[in-house]
Structure formats: structure tokens, C-alpha cells
């Protein structure tokens, strides 16, 4: 892998993104606003305060985390898969000095960058609702990036293994949906039976939600464990997508 060559692929993604974002950027705001209005303002009226926070304030930072997660996951599942198979963009790029490791690295980093773009966008929305107490929230950015990398790695592993594009529905239904529901976005996981709550600790989204919520409230110390978790897992997973993509693309 060489960074200068991976950079060329990142530039390609950026060129495409800046070309198309104008038409889709406004859409980024729609989903989080829907969640905040429906769950926060609608359902929230019937929910008592959680750890001294109103319900909408409780879920706000979690929405930042989940939106950034989905950005990376879409990119490295459908996005990567379409470039790899239907569009044959990978074939075209691999005929240049860029090799498969450069390409995989660029796909992963681009997904993490998209996590940050979406995370920041949603952060602005959540802040506009008056749900963020501390400027410390800006410090979530590097962790959104790292967590984006983890989601990109997991998604890329899936992409390298699926027989066809329809198989992603298994990944979304059996992995992403439970993650979204049981990572402490909508209720604290310790309300669940111990075994289930313990399971949440092994998922990246749980830690990112933790960090976003804690930083939004201006606390850093309670999440040092989560920070360590994210860093270690992002690094430990990294070799797997490279190996699998090499196998998938080079037959």
C-alpha cells in the first residue's frame, strides 16, 4: 500500500461527491429531524427524564452517532459493491499504478470521512434543536472518524464475502438494525437484562453513542474506556478487509 496512490482514489471519490452532493445534501437533514420530532417531541412527552435529561436531549447525541455510522456502512456496502461489480470502476482503476491495497485503503478512509461529514451535519441539526450543552462535542470528530473506520471495515468484510447485492439485506436486518436499536440511542442499555446489556459493550455503536452523549454534556472522563475500545478495535480489524478484498478482486 502506498499513501500517494490511495490518495488518488480518495480524490476520485471527493470529485464525485462534490459533483453530486448539491442535489442530495439537504436530504441528510431530513432523517435526523424526523427522529428528533417523532421520538423526541412525540414519544418523549410520555417518557420520564433519563439520568436527569429530557428524552429528546437523551437521544440527540445518539442520532449523531447513528447517522455517521450509516454513512460509512452505506458507502462500503452498496457503494463499494456497485463500484466493484456493476460499474467495474475497480477494474479501471487497477489498470493504473494503483493496486488493490491502495484501493481498499481509499475505500475505508473515504467511508470514515463520510462518517465525519454526516456526523458534523447532524451535529449542527441537533445543536439547532438546543440539545448540546458543551463545545466539547467538537472533540467527537476524531472518534466519529475512528468509529467510521470500524464500520467501514466491517462493511467491507461483508462486501468481500457476499455472493450478490441482495445478500446485504441479511447484514442490515441481522446486524445493523439490532445495533441501531440496542446501542443506547433510544434507552440506556442497562435497563435490559444483564446478558443483553453486556452484548452491547462489544458493539462499536454503543461506544460512539457513549462518547457523543458524554461530550455533548461536557464530560470526558466517563468515556476513556470507550475511546480505548474504539482505537484498539479499529486497528485490530484493519488487516481483514485488505486480505479479503485481495482475494475477492484478484480471484
Amino acid at each position, binding site marked *: 500500500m502506498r499513501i500517494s496512490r490511495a490518495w488518488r482514489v480518495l480524490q*476520485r471519490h471527493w470529485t464525485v461527491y462534490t*459533483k453530486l452532493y448539491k442535489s442530495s445534501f439537504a436530504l441528510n437533514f431530513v432523517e435526523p429531524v424526523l427522529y428528533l420530532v417523532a421520538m423526541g417531541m412525540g414519544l418523549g412527552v410520555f417518557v420520564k427524564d433519563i439520568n436527569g435529561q429530557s428524552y429528546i436531549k437523551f437521544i440527540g447525541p445518539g442520532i449523531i452517532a447513528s447517522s455517521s455510522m450509516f454513512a460509512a456502512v452505506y458507502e462500503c456496502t452498496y457503494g463499494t459493491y456497485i463500484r466493484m461489480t456493476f460499474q467495474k470502476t475497480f477494474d479501471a*482503476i487497477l*489498470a493504473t*499504478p494503483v493496486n488493490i491495497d491502495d484501493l481498499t485503503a481509499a475505500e475505508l478512509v473515504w467511508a470514515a470521512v463520510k462518517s465525519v461529514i454526516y456526523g458534523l451535519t447532524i451535529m449542527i441539526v441537533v445543536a439547532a434543536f438546543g440539545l448540546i450543552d458543551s463545545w466539547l462535542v467538537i472533540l467527537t470528530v476524531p472518534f466519529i472518524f475512528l468509529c467510521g473506520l470500524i464500520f467501514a471495515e466491517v462493511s467491507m468484510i461483508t462486501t468481500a464475502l457476499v455472493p450478490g447485492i441482495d445478500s446485504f439485506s441479511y447484514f442490515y436486518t441481522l446486524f445493523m438494525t439490532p445495533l441501531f436499536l440496542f446501542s443506547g440511542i433510544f434507552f440506556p442499555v442497562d435497563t435490559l437484562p444483564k446478558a443483553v446489556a453486556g452484548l452491547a459493550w462489544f458493539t462499536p455503536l454503543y461506544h460512539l453513542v457513549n462518547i457523543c452523549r458524554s461530550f455533548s454534556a461536557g464530560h470526558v472522563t466517563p468515556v476513556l474506556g470507550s475511546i480505548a475500545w474504539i482505537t484498539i478495535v479499529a486497528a485490530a480489524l484493519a488487516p481483514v478487509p485488505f486480505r479479503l478484498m485481495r482475494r475477492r478482486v484478484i480471484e
Partner: protein
Amino acid sequence: MDIVAAHNLVKEYGIITAVNNVSFSISPGECFGFLGPNGAGKTTVMRIISCFLPPTSGTVTVFGVDVTREPSAIKSRLGVMPQEDNLDPDLSVLENLIVYARYFDIPKKTSIPLANDLLAFAELQDRGKMNIKELSGGMKRRLMLARSLVNTPELLILDEPTTGLDPHSRRAVWDKLNQLKFRNTTLLLTTHYMEEAEQLCDRVAIMDAGRVVTIDTPQNLMTEHGGNLENVYLKLTGRNLAD
């Protein structure tokens, strides 16, 4: 020095032997063609030469460098025009060339005039702003050819460059390839069209079932076996006209 040299090249996919002990060499400035039925192993050979697939055994050198040793260095001097359209549909015609040039570290200052020259060469000068899906099949092939030339390659690899084109578009591509030959670019192509091989190739290798059956000039093959190149091809690939 040979531009491409293959010695006892073998490529296996599991239990299938796609390329079986193939040897050949290509000289600078030559136009070398691979003929053979579908599944003969032509594309696999092309993909090994373009450093896309590693050989199972045997050696392939391009510009004197082993394909498994420094693929990126080799690829920086190659042009590749694959069988299927793999233009970037997210980019316009002109952007396709500029972004592709960037993979070869060609800065925009150079690549913009270069891209315009290549569009003129491919007779697409008025189409720069168009989307890829607005192009006809012939235009796409010409743009693929233009794209494969962004790094001024010393060796151009063309996998069935005119398959699926109407006669006018085919002539247009041949015309372009002849211009490249004239400029001393080494060409390596696969084709199903005997007329194409006769028009363009200095030498042809006829492949069948993973093996090279013969390598010679089209003229010699026709003299030796009689009839036109198509008769020679059918005779050597074990398929008679009567079958």
C-alpha cells in the same frame, strides 16, 4: 529487448487450466494479435500481462520486469482497454480522462490540455461535458481508447477492441489503432474478427483450449495452410466449416 516475454505460462483457476504452458514474445513497435474461440484463454493472458492476475507458474516479463515483482511500475507504462465498458459513470466524458490521468500522477495543468487532445483524437471533442450514459456504443469504445492513452503508454493492450460495434465505428477504431502503430506504440490485441487481425496485426497467435496452436504472420499462415485467415483459424482450432 522484447516488450513482452512469456515463458511456460500457466494459469489455473481451481481445477480449470485457463492457460496451459504458453510462451511468446512481442517486439517493440509490433502489433501482436491473439485469436481464438471464447474460453481459449486470451483474456486471461491479457489480464496477466496487465498485472491484474498473477500467473500460477511460468514467467511473464513486461519491459523486462517480472509482472509479479513491480506491477505498479509496469502499469505506469501500460495502456489497457478492456472488453467491457468500465468508464466512470459518475463523471463526465472529460472528467473521466482527467481523473484517470490523476491515477498516473499527471497534474491537472498537464491533463486538461492532454484530455482535450485525446478527445479530438477520439473525435469526441464536442462531447466533453456529456454524461457517459448519453454516449453511443462506438463513442464509449473511442473514449475507452482515449482513456487508455492518457499516460502515453509504450504498450497498449486491447481486449476485443471492436466487439459489438457497427462497421463505421469499427473502421474508426482501426483507423485510430493504425495511427498509433504509425507512432510506434506496441499493440497487443485479442479479436474474433479475422479481418481485424489481417488489417492490423504483424503477427498473430492462435489459441485454443488454453494453448497457443501457432504463432506467425497472417500472410505466412495463409500461404502455409491455404485460403484466408478465417479458414486457417477454423482449421487450427479444430472446427471445420462443415461442422
